[in-house]
């Protein structure tokens, strides 16, 4: 009798344990493919009239008047000077005679959609901006500032050669890659700064709404248009500039460009926009 009771108690404890562990494991498991599907479904349900590929146009996809302005703007795009400068920089040899093309697959043409990638050797995410500066340093050149001007021009040119190609970020079967992805997701949803905003507060909860005079862009496809010319900045800005500016706008001290957090964030945000076309360089109000 006592034995039977003990067995019953053990079975009950096991069942309880399974019940307790089940939901926790489900919430904590890392499933990028399921995340991407849910993420894209969220936006297509929220904006049912919008085609998936239109999300890459940011605020211009959210507002008819702005869309008209954008179409007119694209006749003489404000990023054109930067694009031309980037092309020239990209093809001009370094002092040692090599060029950027020597550092990248397919000579750096039409590869933007594959960045950032997870470098299994380094065990970290490598962004296009980081790869460009590493290329410069490997060839005896000083690195560029990550936030504007030269870096924006170079990435503008590289994005232009990938225009229309679907974002294609790979997550290799490596627990470190999954961890980097998960950390990026965590950063995206974590509230920070005195204003207690996360990236999601603006770009998930409120795309299409106004924050002061600005129309907020949807998170889906937000990096496909990078780098961008922003009228507010009166110039070009890179993904690094976008991230650091967002942090300071919510009264958070920005991290250093290309710190692990930002690299992981870019990895996450780019992955969930897989399949949407590269539209960079872009222009924003």
């Amino acid at each position, binding site marked *: 009798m006592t034995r039977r009771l003990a067995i019953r108690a053990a079975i009950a404890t096991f069942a309880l344990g399974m019940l307790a562990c089940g939901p926790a494991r489900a*919430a904590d498991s890392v499933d990028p493919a399921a*995340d991407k599907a*849910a*993420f894209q479904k*969220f936006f297509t349900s929220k904006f049912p009239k919008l085609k998936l590929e239109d999300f890459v146009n940011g605020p211009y996809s959210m507002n008819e008047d702005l869309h008209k302005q954008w179409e007119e703007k694209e006749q003489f795009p404000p990023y054109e000077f930067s694009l031309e400068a980037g092309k020239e920089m990209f093809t001009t040899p370094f002092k040692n005679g090599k060029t950027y093309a020597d550092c990248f697959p397919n000579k750096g043409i039409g590869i933007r959609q594959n960045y950032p990638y997870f470098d299994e050797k380094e065990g970290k995410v490598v962004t296009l901006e980081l790869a460009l500066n590493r290329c410069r340093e490997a060839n005896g050149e000083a690195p560029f500032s990550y936030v504007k001007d030269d870096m924006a021009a170079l990435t503008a040119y590289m994005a232009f050669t990938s225009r229309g190609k679907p974002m294609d970020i790979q997550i290799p079967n490596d627990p470190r890659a999954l961890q980097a992805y998960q950390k990026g*997701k*965590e950063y995206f*949803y*974590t*509230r*920070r*700064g*005195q204003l*207690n905003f*996360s990236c*999601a*507060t603006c770009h*998930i*909860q409120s795309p299409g709404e106004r924050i002061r005079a600005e129309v907020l862009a949807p998170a889906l496809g937000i990096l496909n248009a990078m780098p961008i010319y922003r009228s507010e900045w009166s110039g070009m800005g890179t993904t690094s500039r976008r991230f650091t500016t967002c942090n*300071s706008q919510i*009264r*958070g*001290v920005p*991290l250093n460009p290309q710190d692990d*957090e930002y690299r992981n964030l870019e990895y996450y945000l780019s992955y969930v926009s897989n399949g949407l076309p590269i539209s960079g360089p872009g222009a924003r109000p």
Partner: protein
Amino acid sequence: MSGAIRAIFAASALLLATASTALAASEADYKAAYAAAEAANKEAGALRNQWTTTASTLSAAKKAGDAGDFDTAVAQAKEAEALAKASIFQATSEKERWKDMEVR
């Protein structure tokens, strides 16, 4: 009687003296308050979650301290410490709370 009056005067003088010390902050008060605020902000930095307002309030405290205005300096340092502690609370609570906002 005169003894009692003297005692009252003495007590009043003592009260006034301690009251004025409590109102006017000293350099030591400022340094202690500033160090506490700086330590809290450093902790927020380790959590990768410093606020710009903490930094600017700390700067204001230092500016007032350097100018010898220790009352303002202490008030600003205490404000900076409160901001830093709020940022620590935010970073700690968000370790789990971020999941509430996740699109699933």
